[in-house]
């Protein structure tokens, strides 16, 4: 490993020299130095009638951190899957160091010198860290030595790992470290990172950036996929922007402004969300006191002594890294899971801890869970059926008739579906399509709109804009603020700090099932949230003994 990285470094320094030589204007050196490590020409992938990637031209120079920017569904993941041999291109070519190559499988990609850190679906939860790493190696290292090798490498890059731990027991940040170490063990010249910071705390992200700087210093190239403009500007040398499967720009991100990058990504201006006009909070609508709930599966989180008071007219954001009890908290707030102590959750003064979802809905609450497919909506049913499924009890008078027969009134349901769709600008090709046929953003707009349409007194939303394009996200956020303005209490569980700062009046942080005291957003900083996310409960960098122990 040392040897190769030396060679790489030499290579990099040679490059530097030739660039210096060429500054007066030498064409020969210029050509030589500009052979990209990896280049794609007209790379295309067609799924049915969809051109997921349409004639993509991309060039990654040796030793650079290259950003691939784009919205969800812009074709970033499809592109890198082709580079890593997971998908076969429908057209175009890939050049490695100037020579055309065919990458038919991830194994071939690794042999070529490409490593990949996936965003999802690539670790095996039931296996240990060492076993996960062993799977990515091509059989030369004996299995007993992999533990030592993994430990050594993880320390070299400042990514501490316990090789004998089961992945299922690790945090998302730790899981990502495994992926990175796994990629590094192959000694790649190009490392592809797919949305690496979407699951990290700001501090963990800083650590990752240090690792990337180290890789760059060794002469390796990094292809960095993201939709976060701020970090792209911070760490990337060049950027290629994709929209609807086409390259819409190639630039030096440091020469651009966030709004110019956003324009390239979205293809237009994004409406800014404004929390102005949130008045003084009114009566207490939700009161959570000493709420505890045991973990329901070995991989779930136990909620411990959660206290939270939410008043009419305010938006409380609950920040935190995924897997710290977000879904567990949502489940007990919505009544999907009831708690033994009825008094620990009071809604408008009524003890509600033991009431189910429908009972809480009848009290004026609405809920939007995180997963769109299969939880917030049934993908294989049309929008109007999904509307009836969630509101048959609260809107019984309008939607149902025939007493206990519960016949669905098609007319009013269709009217409501239409009203919701136009209020939230849900774009669809049919009047009443299957929920699963809508794009993520459009379906989310419909689901949020479905709940807003009944003007709930209390709204609890989990990850309202996860995987939603910028336009839809700003619309959803504005709708949440508007609901609070009209005098409802809104609880937003979100991992997206930008979102938290945009819409919240107060912020609390969830860490390992504990909720920090909500603080006004005006006095909150990102650093402080980051510390709270990392388990420093006083938010000042002094770990509580227990929190230290947990890590």
């Amino acid at each position: 490993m040392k040897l190769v990285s030396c060679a790489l470094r030499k290579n990099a320094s040679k490059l530097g020299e030739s660039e210096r030589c060429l500054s007066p204007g030498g064409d020969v050196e210029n050509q030589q130095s500009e052979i990209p490590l990896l280049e794609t020409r007209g790379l295309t992938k067609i799924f049915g009638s969809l051109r997921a990637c349409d004639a993509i031209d991309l060039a990654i120079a040796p030793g650079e951190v290259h950003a691939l920017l784009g919205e969800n569904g812009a074709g970033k993941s499809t592109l890198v899957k082709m580079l890593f041999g997971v998908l076969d291109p429908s057209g175009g070519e890939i050049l490695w160091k100037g020579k055309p190559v065919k990458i038919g499988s991830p194994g071939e990609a690794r042999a070529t010198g490409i490593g990949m850190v996936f965003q999802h679906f690539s670790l095996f939860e039931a296996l240990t860290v060492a076993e996960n790493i062993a799977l990515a190696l091509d059989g030369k290292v004996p299995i007993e030595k992999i533990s030592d090798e993994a430990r050594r490498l993880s320390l070299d890059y400042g990514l501490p790992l316990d090789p004998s731990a089961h992945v299922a027991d690790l945090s998302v940040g730790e899981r990502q470290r495994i992926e990175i170490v796994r990629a590094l063990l192959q000694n790649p010249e190009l490392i592809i990172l797919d949305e690496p910071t979407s699951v990290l705390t700001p501090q963990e992200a800083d650590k990752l950036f240090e690792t990337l700087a180290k890789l760059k210093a060794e002469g390796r190239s990094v292809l960095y996929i993201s939709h976060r403009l701020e970090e792209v500007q911070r760490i990337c040398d060049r950027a290629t922007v994709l929209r609807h499967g086409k390259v819409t720009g190639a630039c030096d991100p440091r020469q651009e402004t966030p709004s110019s990058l956003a324009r390239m990504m979205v293809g237009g201006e994004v409406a800014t969300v404004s929390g102005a006009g949130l008045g003084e909070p009114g009566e207490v609508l939700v009161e959570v006191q000493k709420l505890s709930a045991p973990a329901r599966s070995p991989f779930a989180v136990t909620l411990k002594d959660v206290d939270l008071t939410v008043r009419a007219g305010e938006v409380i954001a609950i920040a935190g890294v995924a897997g710290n009890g977000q879904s567990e908290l949502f489940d007990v707030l919505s009544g999907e899971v009831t708690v033994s102590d009825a008094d620990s959750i009071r809604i408008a003064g009524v003890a509600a801890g033991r009431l189910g979802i429908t009972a809480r809905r009848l009290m004026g609450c609405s809920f939007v869970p995180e997963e769109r497919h299969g939880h917030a909506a049934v993908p294989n049913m049309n929008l109007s059926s999904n509307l009836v499924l969630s509101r048959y009890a609260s809107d019984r008078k309008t939607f149902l008739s025939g007493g206990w027969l519960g016949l669905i009134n098609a007319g009013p349901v269709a009217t409501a579906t239409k009203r919701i769709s136009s209020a939230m600008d849900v774009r669809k090709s049919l009047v009443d399509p299957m929920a699963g046929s809508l794009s993520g953003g459009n379906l989310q707009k419909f689901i949020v709109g479905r709940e807003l349409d009944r003007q709930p007194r209390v709204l609890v939303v989990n990850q309202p804009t996860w995987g939603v394009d910028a336009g839809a996200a700003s619309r959803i956020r504005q709708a949440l603020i508007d609901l609070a303005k009209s005098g409802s209490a809104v609880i937003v569980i979100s991992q997206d700090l930008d979102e938290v700062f945009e819409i919240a009046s107060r912020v609390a942080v969830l860490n390992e099932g504990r909720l920090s005291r909500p603080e006004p957003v005006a006095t909150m900083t990102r650093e402080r949230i980051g510390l709270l996310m990392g388990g420093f409960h006083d938010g000042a960098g002094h770990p509580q003994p227990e929190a230290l122990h947990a890590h």
Partner: protein
Amino acid sequence: MDMTQAIILTIITAATPLLLAAIGELVVERSGVLNLGVEGMMIMGAVAAFAIAQLTGSAGLGAIGGLVSGMLFSLLFGFLTLTLVANQVATGLALTILGLGLSGMIGESFIGLPGLKLAAIEIPLLSDIPFIGRVLFSQDPIFYTSIIAVFGVSWFLFKSRAGLRLRAIGDNHSSAHALGINVVRTRYLAVMFGGACAGLAGAHLSIVYTPQWVENMTAGRGWIALALVVFASWRPGRALIGAYLFGAVSIGQLFAQSRGIGIPSQLLSALPYLATIAVLVIISLNRRMTLINTPASLGKSFVPER
């Protein structure tokens, strides 16, 4: 040979086919494939072993024939579920029904014929050990195979790289594919191993346990093997415990029935199932470990995106 030895020998004979079939299915399920056709593959193994033994006059060739026919039968399952991506549950059930019918047809002319018994192999020296020698080391080759299979599979799954790949596929076939592991080929091999084990288990019934051909002679053992795999939480050692426990209680309750204990015979007949389930449930009380051992992609079809 005293009474105790005789009882233990009977227990071993009762447990061996269950153990073999369970170990085979365990490997199949660890790779993420649910083959409910164990009963069908077993009965095919049984009829093939009996027929080949009759036709060639060699019980050894019969055993090999049983193994091969189980494997071939499992290939049919593999082709349907792995290549044509048919539903695994439905295909497995169909395999069982097909096996029961097909074996009945093939075996019609063999009904009532006296069978050949697979000769025991006495292991030199070890078989001279008092008591244990006669019980453990003067057995038929299929018994030895079943024990070797337990340790072999255990080593393969948890110590070898190929076994690690197989477990990885069972845990998450999409990730395994993304890492460049050949999911379909590995699953074919696992399914064939399962078929071979089930076939040999069937052969044990028709050339060791009761050397004759009786229609439907597996009598639900394939289903018990399937249940054992689940209750053993996909661990070979526990499958061994489960199979022998089941065998022991089955034999024990027969004794009890013959002695005329005042418990209804139906209840006694149910005892092996209850006892095995109870013990294996207690063993797997640690839910975290059970979850980690459960192949997460069990029964899910895999279609590589290309």
